[in-house]
């Protein structure tokens, strides 16, 4: 066995997509003496969800358009009341200063003639969408700041597990090099997890393993690492499910086209939802329309003026998911003449879009001392890109403070030896299963047993299948370092699948529209279930769920407002009237 590579830093940031670079920069700004390492599975220059830029900020709280209080109320309602308003408020208050800082750094947002931010209404109640038609350079801007602040960067390292010291404080992480399979040990006083969504959980309808909505580099690594470190996770049963361009499986995108006059329609060309903002309630209406005989569902644009459509194409075909245009061309779809066929995505875990994630407070602290989480994997509902930046900042600053008071923790040699053996095992086998075979089967089972509407018996069967696949992990063969990375990702996906099933079974009611629609518990039950469902690894090593009370609200939500997101459906007699 060759010597392990090892390095000691103060702050280790895992994941260099959106939240990660911000966390690293802010830790360095808070205390330039600290050694801050940004560890990235891909390459920081082009990694993560925003690799090709973004169409816009989905949740900008800009003075004159919205207040933090309004935003907290809207997301409380959109998430059916199950929120920690303190975390939403920390986001909302930091939202505008973050936009201004990104603007100073060179990120381009849409402005009107007077130079004010041109915020648009897409949500059910308030106005929060700030387009960034020229947002493709965002990763370049972040990279420049990383360099400027002297953040150390290691690309092509896949973190696999977190280490703790004997007192239960975070002490570092293990990683493998995806090009050489070298095993690395990083010792750190604090670790910030920024590894994004669990984007490779369900199998896309196309059957292509990497044709996911999320950037498939994000396999749920951080969810699994936080779980094994003993951290609490929350809202895992509140799945991510999105309305997407069928087969292409990317956003179509109603947030861009809505303000121009585009909308979601059924096969008769009728509008059936009042609001295109993605929520579980909206997805349930989408599902009902598909199942109710008036489907499929389309994004309707053909009524718009030619110059408007050209503007839309300039945004949608150059930003975020720029291959959209290529896909439409291949099918002969022209926005001028055809509506875009849409479909329901595979399931995922992502608090950026819904609510499933590692439990954090308003400083991005998890329940493990020294461990932070920010971005899609941290439970701050509907947090999106700006939420990743804001929580990256909060985590970086708090981690810098925490480090000042801490001595480095000791990692037990036995823990390192065991982890090295676990992650490298697939390389030493010559007979067995290939990583992509096991992944395909696992994700097909996720579709078969966990895709809503959820059914108790099916989820129980799913758990039985997942247990069999857990045994198959011991037979996976990796022929090279790349396959070793994939093999380790399969184990992350499996952990996420089990969490998704157990948290869903635990909450015996329906909530969040389609995200947690249980056929055998179809009603919402606030008496028993107005609580967070938490999940963690118990003392005995088994997965355990429990209830956590919802913190008293700091912003009141009126009786009538509370159900606003349950009234999204447009009834045709109303249209006629």
């Amino acid at each position, binding site marked *: 066995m060759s010597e392990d590579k090892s390095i000691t830093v103060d702050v280790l940031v895992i994941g260099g997509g959106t939240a990660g670079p911000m966390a690293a920069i802010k830790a360095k700004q808070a205390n330039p003496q600290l050694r801050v390492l940004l560890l990235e599975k891909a390459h920081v*220059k082009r990694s993560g969800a925003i690799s090709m830029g973004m169409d816009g900020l989905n949740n900008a709280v800009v003075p004159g358009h919205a207040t933090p209080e309004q935003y907290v109320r809207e997301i409380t309602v959109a998430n059916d009341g199950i929120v920690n308003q303190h975390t939403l408020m920390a986001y909302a208050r930091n939202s505008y200063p973050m936009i201004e800082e990104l603007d100073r750094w060179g990120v381009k947002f849409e402005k009107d003639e007077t130079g004010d931010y041109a915020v648009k209404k897409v949500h059910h109640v308030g106005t929060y969408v700030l387009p960034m038609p020229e947002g493709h350079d965002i990763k370049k801007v972040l990279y420049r700041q990383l360099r400027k602040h002297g953040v150390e960067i290691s690309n092509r390292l896949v973190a696999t597990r977190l280490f703790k010291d004997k007192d239960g404080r975070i002490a570092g992480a293990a990683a493998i090099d995806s090009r050489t399979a070298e095993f690395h040990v990083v010792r750190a006083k604090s670790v910030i997890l920024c590894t994004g969504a669990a984007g490779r959980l369900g199998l896309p309808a*196309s059957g*292509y393993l990497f044709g996911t909505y999320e*950037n*498939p*580099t994000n396999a749920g690594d951080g969810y699994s690492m936080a779980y094994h470190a003993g951290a609490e996770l929350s809202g895992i049963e509140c799945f991510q499910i999105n309305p997407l361009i069928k087969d292409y499986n990317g956003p179509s995108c109603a947030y861009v086209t809505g303000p121009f006059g585009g909308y979601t329609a059924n096969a008769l060309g009728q509008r059936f939802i009042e609001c295109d903002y993605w929520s579980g309630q909206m997805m349930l209406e989408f599902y009902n329309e598909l199942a109710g005989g008036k489907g499929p569902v389309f994004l309707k644009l053909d009524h718009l003026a030619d110059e408007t459509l050209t503007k839309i194409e300039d945004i949608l075909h150059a930003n975020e998911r720029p*291959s959209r245009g290529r896909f439409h061309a291949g099918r002969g779809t022209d926005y001028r003449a055809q509506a875009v066929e849409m479909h329901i995505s595979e399931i995922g875990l992502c608090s950026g879009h819904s609510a499933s994630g590692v439990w954090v407070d308003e400083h991005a602290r998890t329940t493990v001392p020294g461990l932070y989480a920010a971005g899609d994997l941290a439970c701050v509902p509907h947090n999106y890109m700006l939420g990743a930046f804001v929580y990256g900042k909060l985590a970086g600053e708090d981690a810098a403070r925490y480090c000042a008071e801490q001595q480095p923790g000791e990692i037990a040699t036995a823990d390192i030896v065991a982890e090295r053996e676990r992650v490298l095992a697939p390389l030493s086998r*010559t*007979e067995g299963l290939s990583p992509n075979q096991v992944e395909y089967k696992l994700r097909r089972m996720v579709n078969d047993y966990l895709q809503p509407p959820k059914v108790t018996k099916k989820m129980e069967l799913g758990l039985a299948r997942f247990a069999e696949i857990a045994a198959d992990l011991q037979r996976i063969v990796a022929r090279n370092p790349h396959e070793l990375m994939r093999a380790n990702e399969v184990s992350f996906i499996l952990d996420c699948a089990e969490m998704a099933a157990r948290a869903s079974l635990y909450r015996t009611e329906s909530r969040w529209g389609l995200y947690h629609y249980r056929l055998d518990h179809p009603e919402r039950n606030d008496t028993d279930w107005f609580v967070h469902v938490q999940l963690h690894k118990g003392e005995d090593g088994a997965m355990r769920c429990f209830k956590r009370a919802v913190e008293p609200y700091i912003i009141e939500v009126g009786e009538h407002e509370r159900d606003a997101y349950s009234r999204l459906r447009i009834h045709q007699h109303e249209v006629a009237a």
Partner: protein
Amino acid sequence: MSTAWVSGSLPVSVDADKCIADKGCTICVDVCPLDVLEIDATSGKAVMRYDECWYCLPCEQDCPTGAIHVDIPYLLR
């Protein structure tokens, strides 16, 4: 491990005449988030090694000579 040849259509194609990997360029290999590209040891040109593409386009966008073209993977087309 038992193996079989599988033929199929791959989404990423590289124009070998335009690719300057033999002059030291590795940009597409560096930027790909899924790490599916490689400089082929025999030809000295960039190739797609793993059929695991997110059709996200950094490789095509950042290639200095316009040698790369990404198609939508066949299963999605």
